[in-house]
């Protein structure tokens, strides 16, 4: 099987890789690019641990072929926050103890970021439904939802402060 | 005298639910039990945890017993 040469952008950085046509974006991120913050929980789009954005739209990296990254903008957990400062969402997850084992956390943070970009003021129900594709087996979701709603409120306050 | 209480399975072999044994520590206790209840599988017994007055101890080898201690042999519990 010939590998294909793909030029893409990952977390804003121009990136090239070679990949076989069958490889998923998740395989490429984890095994070829060593971006292991994106986790594999099921490989079938049922757990959300591999949540990434493709051209800004939230999806599961296990449901995207690596070759499809050609010319796209890929966003992963490694691109959330900056090297010296956590994002508000990350901070709130820590403050609210919204993680226990932490395996679902990168996916949840990527998804929460997508949620708050789309809906800066989600209700509890909206947050729960938006994040229903991110399975967490440790927390019972309570503290995750609290962290998400608090992050939303904080970001809105920051936005107002800036305006 | 320590009061030793036996489980249902142990009672099949000891014939008694409990007995008083003069022992100052765990090792003396085991020796006395072995003498008194020869049918008990001592190797199995030594693998068990014990509870002395309600305090569960996994490795009782060096434990001492108080004058009226109540002793139970328990299966090792690990949990998940």
């Amino acid at each position: 099987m010939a590998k294909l040469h793909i030029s893409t952008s990952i977390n804003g950085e121009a990136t090239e890789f070679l990949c076989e046509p069958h490889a998923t974006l998740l395989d490429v991120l984890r095994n070829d690019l060593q971006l292991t913050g994106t986790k594999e929980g099921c490989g079938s789009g049922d757990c959300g641990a591999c949540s990434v954005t493709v051209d800004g739209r939230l999806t599961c990296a296990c449901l995207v072929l690596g070759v499809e990254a050609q010319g796209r903008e890929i966003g992963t957990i490694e691109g959330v926050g900056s090297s010296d400062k956590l994002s508000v969402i990350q901070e709130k997850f820590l403050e609210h103890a919204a993680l226990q084992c932490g395996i679902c956390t990168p996916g949840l943070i990527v998804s929460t970021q997508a949620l708050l970009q789309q809906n800066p003021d989600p209700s509890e129900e909206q947050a729960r439904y938006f994040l229903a594709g991110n399975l967490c087996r440790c927390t019972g979701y309570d503290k995750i939802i609290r962290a998400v709603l608090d992050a939303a409120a904080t970001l809105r306050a920051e936005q107002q402060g800036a305006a | 005298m320590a009061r030793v209480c036996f489980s249902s399975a142990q009672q099949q072999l000891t014939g008694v639910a409990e007995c008083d044994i003069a022992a100052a520590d765990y090792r003396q206790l085991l020796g006395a039990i072995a003498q008194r209840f020869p049918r008990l599988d001592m190797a199995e017994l030594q693998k068990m945890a014990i509870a002395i007055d309600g305090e569960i101890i996994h490795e009782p080898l060096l434990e001492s017993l108080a004058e009226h201690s109540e002793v139970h042999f328990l299966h090792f519990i690990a949990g998940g």
Partner: protein
Amino acid sequence: MSEAQNFKYIGRNTIRPDGFDKVTGRANYGADLTLPGMLWGKILRSPHAHANIKRLDTSKAEALAGVHAVATFADFSAVGDEAIEGGEGSSTLLDLARNILARDKVLYHGHAVVAIAAKTAAIAEQALALVEIDYEILTPVLDVRTAMAADAPLLHNDLYTQNGADKATTPSNVAARHEFKMGDVAAGFAAAEIIVEREFYTPTAHQGYIEPHACTVRFDKDGQSMVWCSTQGHFDVRASTARLLGMELGKLKVIASEIGGGFGGKTTVYLEPVALILSRKSGRPVKMVMNRDEVFKATGPGSASRSWIKLGAKKDGTITAMQGSLAYEAGAFKGSPVMMGCMTAFTPYAVPNMLIEGFDVVVNKAKVAAYRAPGAPQAEFAVEMLVNELALKLGRDPIDLRLQNAAKEGTQTIYGPKLKRVGLVECLEAARDSKHYQQALAANQGRGVAAGFWFNVGGQSSVTINMNPDGTGTIVEGSPDIGGSRASMQMMAAEALGIAPALLKPIIGDTENVAFSAGTGGSRTTFATGMAVIEAAEDVVRQMKQRAASMWNVTAEQVDWVDGVAVNTAGEDRLSLASICAGADRTGGQISGRGNINARGAGPSFAVHVCDVAVDQETGKVDIVRYTAVQDAGKAIHPAYVEGQFQGGAVQGIGWALNEEYVYGASGLLENAGFLDYRIPVASDLPMIDAIIVEVPNNFHPYGVRGVGESGIIPPLAAVGYAVENAIGAAVTDLPLSPPRVLQLVQDRG
């Protein structure tokens, strides 16, 4: 310890020290390690539930370009039938070997048969397709009733029922019968004025951790071999792997990666020994990662159970007798947690007459593993359902009835000792007084209350605290951090040392840089490893005092330690911990404290849950409307993570009660091996889970800790189950309460 301890750090919600790594994706889990020259290992699994292996030929697979090694049971041929120490699932090394690579028989759908290591995962998978196996298909045995029948097909020709001290002479599928009794149940029932009894069923349920099992290993012929894996106990991985491969412990380093959930399911080995065999044969590092299908088919689950329970009480509510018979599925090899079921079922109650028996039964399903309070949820579900029925029939409030019969300090347990101080009464009172319990139900709603008891365990833990010249320190512990325990260790060490938690960095040592520690399980980590941390910190303090004394030319006894500062009681001198560390080179070298213990005195953590449901009577769908989890933590070191344990346990239990179950076809094939059809709760299924922390200290722990990881999964089965019963007015016997089952109950009610 007195209840009125004034803590400086304990009880605060600090930011967990590993938090940054976990919210940025930097934390490395089981599948995240790559080694140069690494091969990928894949496993060929049985397509049948029960079959003899008549012929196994791997030659074509071995001949495929890119294939480096093949492993089968033959690689375990030297393994003997010796018992594996520890744990309630009485297992043998041979059973363990046969579970991770089938010998002459496959015993469940997904049972591993052959492992292959190849240059890429794709080549390894191609090679698996080239393995030739002739199976002779046998009739599968899929539930305890079938398995216990006299004419049942046998899984093992050499399995004889152990019944107390007796052993049967003809083989069967019943590995063991256990019995616990106290008092005289016949007399107890004779004295009863009301008797309730029922049979119950709980399905096979999986722990459902999000991270699949994974490891990367390197076998070095001359030196140190290495296993990197996701496990709850890396010392246990070392022990079983070394024994299976005939290695010395000192030649096998096991590194615990970050662990993406376990709930008991990662207390045993599946991949590690196989990967090490492949590495030994190929001379290359090998990585193995299960996919989700494999996780469901061949790891974990918790036992399915059938139970019969009978309770007798007087009209005034005094329970006079409790009796039960439990049969638990062990899966393909003996070792279900049915004994734990027997020991826990009645323990929330102070009742003089009790009798319970339990059967450990093998069936053609994956070998069960520990699952959060193993054995307890199934048995206590049955008992709690009937206690609620009793309350209904007596016209009593269910919490009130429980308070009347609650186990407390001095209550005789069925498993032996009398209880020390416990917090069941306090939990019941907190539940009764909660806003939730005061709130009235709406139409179509029902409420359930249930209690739960789990022992909690102690055991071995080892900790070293290494101080640095600037007064910071590293806490090296041997307990994998599965839910934020580093934060608790940091706080307990900080409390004992009298310095800020952030100055201390907790790390999980591998099997070479910290002494033996039992696994993270049994709700033991904050309790037992916490005690080791405190002991190590006290060792540091003792040395700090000595160093200060030597500087001041006084005796160590003349030095006090106050808030991280050495105080000369014979003068005005003060030396902070940081300054003692800074000068340690001149007073005998840097300071390390050590706490290697076998912790005793674990204290039970009782839980009481209240659940309100709404039932759609046209579809049978159950919604959780409100939920409160109350539990005795002893002392909550980090309250937010303690609440998290309550909430997480509650939701796992809700899943078990409502929708989670293994679905098998008639031929014994598992039909729902994935998160799509094995339905664990998702965020939108749930309300907030109110957590109420009760603190009745465990006096055997310096800070009063009991451990909180497990009790919380016990009450939900009956809290949800009875809430549904209450809502629909029909008796609930079987879980899960999936919509078709609930609709059936509604329709049968008429």
